[in-house]
């Protein structure tokens, strides 16, 4: 009888990423740590449900986000305040010299719904495909895409920018070229 590698031995290596994902969702370190603890316990006792050879981190992320959202549904901890408690704390529009100020970005990110933070962290920060993210979130691919688009639009809104807005001037040429191409079809 051969001894297969036990995926539980790999759990430790994923804890920093799990914790970062938990912090991204909760925006609260002690809540995040409780969430990671619960995730480790669930993963440990359900390890036979993990398919060896598939992405262990994605499997752990799925457990973590399911735990987070089901407890959020139960406790209704999240205050229904779409504008966020920090609304108004954003500094004025970013200077048109280019980069987004990271502090402003963080404040805007904090104000997003957890669902929006989730999809952006999975796709934008971790580079998961929409298919993979949809699998983790338990939704259709199209839902994941439109959720990501809405989340980005909301971020831009909070940052006082429109997504289509050209904050750098650099792409004006390309934008105009696109508009030019669509011109005749519209006519």
């Amino acid at each position, binding site marked *: 009888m051969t001894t297969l590698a036990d995926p*539980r031995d790999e*759990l*430790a290596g994923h*804890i*920093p*990423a799990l*914790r*970062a*994902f938990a*912090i*991204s969702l909760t925006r609260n*370190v002690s809540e995040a*740590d409780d969430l*990671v*603890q619960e995730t*480790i*316990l669930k993963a*440990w006792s359900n390890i036979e449900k993990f398919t060896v050879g598939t992405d262990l981190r994605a499997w752990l992320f799925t457990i973590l986000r399911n735990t987070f959202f089901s407890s959020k549904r139960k406790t209704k901890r999240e205050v229904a305040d779409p504008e966020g408690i920090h609304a108004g704390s954003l500094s004025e529009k970013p200077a048109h010299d280019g*980069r*987004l100020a*990271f502090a402003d*970005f*963080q404040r805007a*990110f904090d104000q997003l719904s957890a669902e929006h933070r989730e999809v*952006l*962290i999975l796709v*934008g*920060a*971790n580079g998961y495909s929409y298919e993979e993210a949809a699998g983790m979130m338990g939704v259709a691919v*199209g839902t994941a*895409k439109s959720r990501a688009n809405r989340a*980005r639009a909301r*971020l*831009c809104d909070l940052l006082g*920018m429109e*997504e289509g*807005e*050209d*904050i*750098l001037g*650099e*792409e004006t040429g390309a934008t105009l070229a*696109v508009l030019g191409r669509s011109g005749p079809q519209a006519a």
Partner: protein
Amino acid sequence: MKEEMAEEKPKPRLRRDIDENLKRVFEDALDTEVPDRFKQLLEQLKAKEARK
């Protein structure tokens, strides 16, 4: 299919900026020190398993 086509175009600068900032949000969270409780938890779970 139309949606797929729309994604072919290169990412606008703003979109790239957003993704870079998202990576930084995640990396900042990664950089915070992981408490010992998780290492201890895994050790306890392993010890319990060994006794089975």
